[in-house]
């Protein structure tokens, strides 16, 4: 039973991550009708914002310590981060420790600006072009972004730990009457879970309860009519693109302690996020969230030893298998609208 609970918890955690990643993608689909293969790259840029902040905070000046030597026998160069010399070692170290949460503050403007520029500079010219062209140009962009990241940060995964205080686990099980330590879950994963729910709720509330959101939803349903009503829908759509980029970026930042970022994670998440969005139904935000949780929980259960013993390798293909089953039984995914991306 405790193992079962642990897998449900894990499934929810995975599901929230999938849903958050898919959310930005489906925002772009739904509003602009653009197939954005660079979405994984946006997620990655977010992750590397955290890395960059970590680097900035550890910018150091060098002092030479004559008493010690480095591996070549030369005097050791001691690096002291500027933050530590400005704020004192303790506060300086604490600021560095909190670099991942702090990166959230940095990632929102950076990603919003990036999304804005990307839409105005590139995507805008592709609204009327075939989806295949959109795929290719954004795929090319994704490769270029990945290579630039590799050029500056190398190809190895970079460790970006969560703040010290989030490193432990929370004994979820003991609240529910299980043995101590039987259902312990990493604290940062729970933070990520809460964060995902918060962002998803915020995006929904924004679209549902603000005038701006209402106009965007109207534009999603019928762009032309909204335009004829004298509303500058283009500007709002650009804003939505920036918003989607910011959501992807935040997901990336918060994910770094779980998955050490490297230049290829964008591509790793690309296929997954597409499957989630399509299973949810093109252009449907609730569908994407639902599909994220569904796939997360099913994948978590498929990884259980008992299930794997029954069907070897099921954990490797479960996502695709579910995608096929759902698309065959529900033609437009879980909650897709008719006529979106069907030709």
């Amino acid at each position: 039973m405790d193992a079962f609970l642990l897998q449900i918890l894990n499934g929810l955690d995975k599901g929230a991550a999938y849903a958050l990643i898919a959310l930005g993608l489906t925002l772009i689909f739904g509003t602009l009708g653009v197939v954005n293969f660079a979405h994984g790259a946006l997620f990655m840029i977010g992750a590397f914002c955290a890395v960059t902040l970590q680097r900035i905070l550890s910018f150091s000046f060098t002092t030479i310590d004559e008493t010690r030597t480095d591996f070549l026998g030369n005097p050791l160069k001691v690096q002291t981060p500027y933050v530590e010399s400005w704020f004192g070692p303790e506060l300086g170290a604490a600021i560095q420790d909190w670099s991942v949460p702090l990166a959230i503050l940095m990632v929102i403007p950076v990603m919003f600006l990036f999304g804005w520029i990307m839409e105005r500079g590139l995507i805008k010219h592709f609204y009327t072009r075939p989806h295949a062209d959109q795929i290719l140009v954004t795929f090319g962009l994704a490769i270029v972004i990945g290579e630039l990241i590799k050029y500056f940060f190398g190809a190895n995964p970079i460790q970006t730990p969560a703040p010290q205080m989030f490193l432990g686990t929370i004994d979820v099980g003991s609240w529910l009457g299980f043995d101590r330590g039987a259902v312990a879950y990493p604290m940062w994963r729970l933070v990520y879970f809460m964060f995902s729910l918060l962002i998803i709720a915020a995006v929904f509330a924004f679209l549902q309860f603000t005038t701006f959101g209402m106009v965007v939803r109207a534009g999603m349903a019928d762009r032309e009519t909204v335009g004829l009503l004298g509303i500058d829908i283009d500007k709002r759509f650009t804003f939505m693109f920036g918003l989607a980029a910011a959501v992807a970026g935040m997901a990336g930042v918060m994910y770094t302690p779980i998955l050490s970022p490297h230049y290829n994670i964008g591509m790793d998440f690309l296929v997954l996020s597409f499957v989630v969005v399509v299973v949810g139904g093109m252009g449907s935000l609730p569908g994407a969230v639902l599909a994220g949780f569904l796939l997360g929980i099913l994948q978590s259960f498929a990884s259980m030893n008992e299930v794997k013993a029954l069907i070897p390798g099921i954990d490797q293909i479960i996502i695709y298998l579910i995608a096929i089953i759902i698309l065959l039984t529900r033609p437009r995914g879980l909650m897709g609208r008719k006529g979106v991306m069907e030709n």
Partner: protein
Amino acid sequence: MSKSNFSRRGVLKTGAIAGAGLALPTYLSAASHSGFTNAPTGSTVTFGFNVPQTGPYAEEGLDELRAQELAVEHLNGIGDGGMLNTFSSKVLDGTGILGKKVNFVTGDTQTKSDVARASAQSMIQKDNCIMINGGSSSGVAVAVQGLCQEAGVIFMAGLTHSNDTTGKDKKANGFRHFFNAYMSGAALGPVLQKEYGTDRRAYHLTADYTWGWTQQESIQASTEALGWETAQNVLTPVGAGDFSSYIAPVLNSGADTLILNHYGGDMVNSLTQAVQFGLRDRQVNGKDFTIIVPLYSELMAAGAGSNIRGVFGSMNWNWQLQDEGTQAFVRSFGQKYGFPPSNAAHTCYVQTLLYADAVTRAGSFNPCAVVEALEDFEFDGMGNGPTTYRGADHQCFKDVLVMKGAENPTSQYDTLEIVEITPRAQVEYDPEHPMFAGGNLGTCNPGA
């Protein structure tokens, strides 16, 4: 000083094979007149350095490339000579190989067998390479080794740790200096016993492909020999990224040891996530829970950061060794690039020198002469102590390092510390050992 192993019998054998090749009614390429593929004709000879430059192992590949460039410089008499000064064989004098200057071409394997073969083919067909070196995965090593066997050039494997490379898939034209999964198990066993006792329950997470399986099999065999129990072996998809759904069941499995048969980014992620699940803070069966990573590399250790502290693993070589050969190599590598070399870099550097030395001792670039010179060749001064290239399977036998994540690293380069240098006798095995059986070395192929 030169001790040539190029016997008369070898010459005759080579001649006969070449003769048979000539007698066949086929169109012959120009190169075939000299009896072997890509016989160097001018004043230069070309090596092909086939390493991953894109994909997950790109950094490792680039480090290999640095070492290979350094080796070529040393062969051509540029720089301080590195390990040429400490190598027990003294036939290389910095004037190239057999009077020919060494050139090299580079290629990108992308860590994909297909691409690696395409790149190696282009090196052989277009650049007339006489030897291919490098690589960072066993799948690629086996694929390229097979290609070199068919084409008639020598393959000096880079980083490849699967038992299969010199077991099931061994080839006469291929040589591996790097250690293998069996050796990791044999070296780790006694250290684990000393550290953690004989009564442990191990839970394996294993990358679901051939290398992962051979390593898991080897480690399971050696830990069970200590009296450990194997609670479970769970196969995980390659590149899974998030391993949480595989780690969560460990909590309630009753196991007190987690063995991660992962490499590269997978290892960084699975280790980091296992630590996040609080595994190392737990007490199971009255013992502290512990994690073991059988195969280490410096680049991974850097990626895993502080999570690696106190975690045991094994390595082929490390720059912190104190012998003369290591120091010479670390000095010239460090002076050129500003940081110490990785063990992938070391193995590629050594392989390049060993090839050059074998050619010189044989007095010929003919692959069959090189094979004969390398088989059962004993040498020293290359950083691993006295070493033998066993003729029966073309595997190098040498000491193996047992490593541990350093508790207090002073820089980003000493995140691992050497716990023990396991003597070679302890990791040796019979060529027909069941984990290596089923292969067939075949005969050397000079091509053409």
